């Protein structure tokens, strides 16, 4: 297996604290293309691998504004411009009656954008990923915690990176092939 066929080097840990400590040292050693894989959301881990800002909240806000403004515009357009009906002498643009649909569509737009925004930004859905070639990676959804230094990292060097990860006290360090 030559270096170009390697996706990265993966270290396996027994607990969340050990993983966060190891991930911090990996970052301190200057590695940039690092990811961690855990069975649940580990507090402090995203910061440890250098991921601070996700844009999900911004996307959700945009979705909410689009949903609310869109349905209000539709109500206004249909009731004032396109087909005005005199309903008991109420104004054509009777905004209090337009609020329920506006509120619901604000929530709907925000929720749809939050869900699909999160999926797309996370690279999901995906049928295959090289990390699944790793040994025992199925335990990442059960009780094991992994950190991976990818071969795309400029400082990646297979033997040295492996030795470095072993020095962090990992239970096991393995090379992840692309196929």
């Amino acid at each position: 297996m030559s270096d170009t066929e390697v996706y990265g080097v993966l270290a396996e840990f027994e607990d969340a604290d050990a993983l966060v400590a190891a991930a911090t040292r990996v970052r301190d050693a200057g590695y940039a293309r690092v990811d961690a894989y855990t069975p649940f959301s580990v507090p402090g881990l995203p910061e440890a691998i250098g991921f601070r800002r996700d844009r999900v909240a911004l996307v959700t806000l945009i979705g909410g504004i689009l949903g609310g403004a869109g349905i209000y515009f539709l109500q206004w357009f249909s009731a004032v411009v396109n087909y005005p009906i005199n309903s008991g002498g109420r104004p054509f643009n009777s905004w209090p009656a337009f609020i329920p649909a506006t509120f619901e569509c604000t929530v709907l737009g925000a929720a749809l954008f939050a869900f699909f925004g999160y999926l797309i930004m996370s690279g999901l859905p995906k049928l295959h990923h090289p990390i699944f070639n790793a040994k025992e990676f199925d335990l990442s959804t059960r009780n094991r915690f992994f950190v991976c230094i990818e071969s795309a990292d400029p400082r990646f060097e297979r033997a040295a990176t492996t030795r470095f990860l072993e020095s962090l006290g990992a239970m096991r360090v393995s090379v992840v092939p692309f196929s």
Partner: protein
Amino acid sequence: MPPAITASGNGVDESRLKFLRGRYSYASITDKISDVVLTRPTHWGWYAGFALCTLLTLLFVIAIAYLFATGVGIWGVDIPVAWAFAITNFVWWVGIGHAGTFISAFLLLLRQKWRTSVNRFAEAMTIFAVAMAGLMPILHLGRPWFFYWLVPYPDIMNVWPQWRSPLVWDIFAIGTYIVVSILFWYMGLIPDLATLRDRSDSRVKQIVYGLFALGWRGEARQWKRFDTAYLLMAGLATPLVVSVHSVVSLDFSIGNTPGWHSTIFPPYFVAGALFSGFAMALTISIPLRAIFGLKDFITARHLDNIAKVMLVCGLLVAYSYVVEIFMAFYSGDEFEKFMVVNRMTGPYAPIYWTVVFCNVVVAQLMWWKRVRLSTLALFVISIIVNIGMWLERFMIIVTSLHRDFLPSSWDVYYPTFWDWATLFGSLGAFAWLFLLFVRFLPAISISEMRKLVLEKREGET
């Protein structure tokens, strides 16, 4: 973890009052929950329940087919009582859904740890209940095949929905509610589907669970976005719940029928929705934890907490009953006063007093800790409250209609076989969907339970 409440002098075993009993590791908690779906032989009780529910679901299908072929005349509805079982079922089912969202979204915002082992099945309860609810207004339409006329779409007649009508608000509220509930539920399921994908031995299950897991890898970046999106969805779902039953109540209170035309309706309906929804959560969780051996996760503490929320909602409902009576006399309106007296003494008086007994009297039993810690007592109370809340919806709808402004059109509504078939058929279909859910998907969020194990361990050291 907060300390368990003391039960000294009550003779109560302290260990029952924890959120998570026993000593679990990440692996054992994962295996225990996923084995229910993957390896454990199915309990005979599941098969028996599934058979019964399949029959009821078939009855529901037959009732709908006969209704579509013949028309709403097969029901007991007529003028003046044109709204009866279908609308009662609708309001009741939507309300049951609300407790699920309340548990999963509002308790998440409040960082209540007891949410963790009950949120998944409560969300499933929401989805199936709202699915039943969503069918009812469509069934009750004279021409159900035109239900989409409520949706704004560019049709060639250039006709738009009447935006000032609560019935149009309704379709937006219910439609949004079901979409957001499904997204929220599925989002939380994705990491657990990945667990099932990685833990199952059969190739078919690996492929099916794998496809629905969407390639989840548990990356730190995915988890971070997951947490943000999940919290935001919870923040969106909480006001949504309040808005949905408020809009449902406006279907009534916008009209000038005595007994309906009241500003207390939105909070009154929301409190009643949570009351019946939490009752249904008890009705479901008590057999669920027994049959699938989940008593370590859904503990007496959870049932105790649910009972406390029910008690509060029940008091709000009781307060609303009192305010309704007070406002009728305070308004001085002849029709309102007549309506209240007629409810208590008219042809539907037995229903009114049953409602008061079920929702006001029986609910007070939950003041006693002994009752809240007795699984049997809670199960019985939850059934009584479910019945009481269904009858309350029926009472609100039918008693207001059967004594019209015009005495010559007064009449009494009697349900027909097909009314009952629709009610019990929808109950069967709801339970049928729920049984399929607990058989094929994890009824408790595995990834959140693993996090609870971590927090419990940190709390002890």
